[in-house]
């Protein structure tokens, strides 16, 4: 079997460009997902049913439907009706942010609820109010415990950003498909795309392991 390295060489700048966009969309998704997820977690833990319910269904919807379906919904229906128009990259970033926020919310909630209730009791017994207890006692501990599952979520998110190719966002897989289409070759472009994803996820894994050590997660 002949392996045409020249295709890879030719498309290399595009793969790098696509990789850049993949990283950008993933980073935006992670950051927005964490910010939104934090508030959704708090909302879902509300003692009041009518406050809790919208958050419960937000999570139900985003975890219970395929990401690709969500991407189509946001790209073709939701964002155009709200903004008038959208771009593939914007649609991917919005969809990834919302989708990951649901998973991150559950990670944060599990982290918070795994903290022994004696911690909050002790803090309250010292006269700390709810916000102080949350900020100084519960959140730091919950965050530490959330790092391993969050890392997992980030890796999934990075790989899921490849769905952007389905709406022509010019990320990594998009260029793989382009190369495949141009030369009618399947091995070279897709192996290359897979390799770049692997490099990205392994780097992320390495970074996360470092963070776990840094924060002394047990």
């Amino acid at each position, binding site marked *: 079997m002949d392996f045409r390295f020249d295709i890879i060489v030719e498309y290399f700048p595009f793969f790098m460009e696509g990789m850049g966009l993949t990283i950008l969309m993933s980073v935006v998704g992670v950051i927005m997902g964490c910010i939104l997820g934090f508030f959704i977690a708090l909302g879902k833990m509300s003692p009041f049913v009518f406050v809790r319910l919208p958050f419960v269904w937000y999570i139900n919807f985003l975890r219970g439907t395929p990401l690709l379906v969500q991407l189509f919904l946001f790209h073709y229906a939701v964002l155009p009706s709200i903004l008038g128009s959208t771009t593939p990259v914007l649609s991917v970033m919005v969809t990834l942010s919302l989708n990951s926020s649901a998973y991150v919310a559950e990670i944060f909630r599990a982290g918070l609820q795994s903290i022994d209730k004696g911690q909050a*009791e002790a803090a309250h*017994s*010292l*006269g*700390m109010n709810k916000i102080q207890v949350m900020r100084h006692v519960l959140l730091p501990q919950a965050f530490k415990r959330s790092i391993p599952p969050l890392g997992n979520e980030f890796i999934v998110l990075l790989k899921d950003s490849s769905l952007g190719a389905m709406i022509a966002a010019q990320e990594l897989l998009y260029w793989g498909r382009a190369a495949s289409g141009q030369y009618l070759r399947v091995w070279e472009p897709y192996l290359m795309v897979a390799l770049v994803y692997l490099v990205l996820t392994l780097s992320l894994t390495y970074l996360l392991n470092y963070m776990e050590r840094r924060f002394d997660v047990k």
Partner: protein
Amino acid sequence: MISVKHLKKSFGDLEVLKDINADINQKEVVVVIGPSGSGKSTFLRCLNLIEPVTDGTVMIDGVELTDKKVDINKLRAEVGMVFQQFNLFPHKTVIENITLPIITVKKWNKTDAEQKAKDLLKKVGLLEKANAYPESLSGGQKQRVAIARALGMEPKVMLFDEPTSALDPEMVGEVLEVMKQLAEEGMTMVVVTHEMGFAKEVGDRVIFMDEGYIVEENEPNQLFDDPQHQRTKAFLSKVL
């Protein structure tokens, strides 16, 4: 100092405290004993509203705790509590455990808070552990830090919820020693414990609880040597 009237507490259908009436005077050390499930820990936890009360009133220093208008956080700051499981903050060092509430609740600056914390650590004999994390301490040391942390708020009353029950036997003494010292300094204390020796030696009064009621209360010697109720006798015969 503390006045409890017709206190009732239920968890769902389970009525844990049925009708508790008690007064605790300033500088008094009251020891609460009773079989497990008698409601003694719940009673203690109602005194700073860590456990919301179902019915009845708890007054501390003339302030009605269950009054919705009362700033419960301010009140809790004046009532120290020590838990069976220590409940130190594992992500904070020993000294940070003590300074955190002083800085956040009392609004002291860091330098003053640290000075206060060091004084307290010296008092409980753990100054050299100031920068250690709780996980590196023994149970007895953890509990002494927990006591120091509660004292940092300069409380008017200290509540102890089975402070030695989770400790290895050889560490019980060091914690009781700190508590005894506190009692000698005139701290008002309510202590739920199984340490009958401590009750006898340090307690001004012993309350015996069973099935959600205060069955009997008296001076330690009276209660231990001459219990009036059958249930008190039965309990004491098992533990003494």
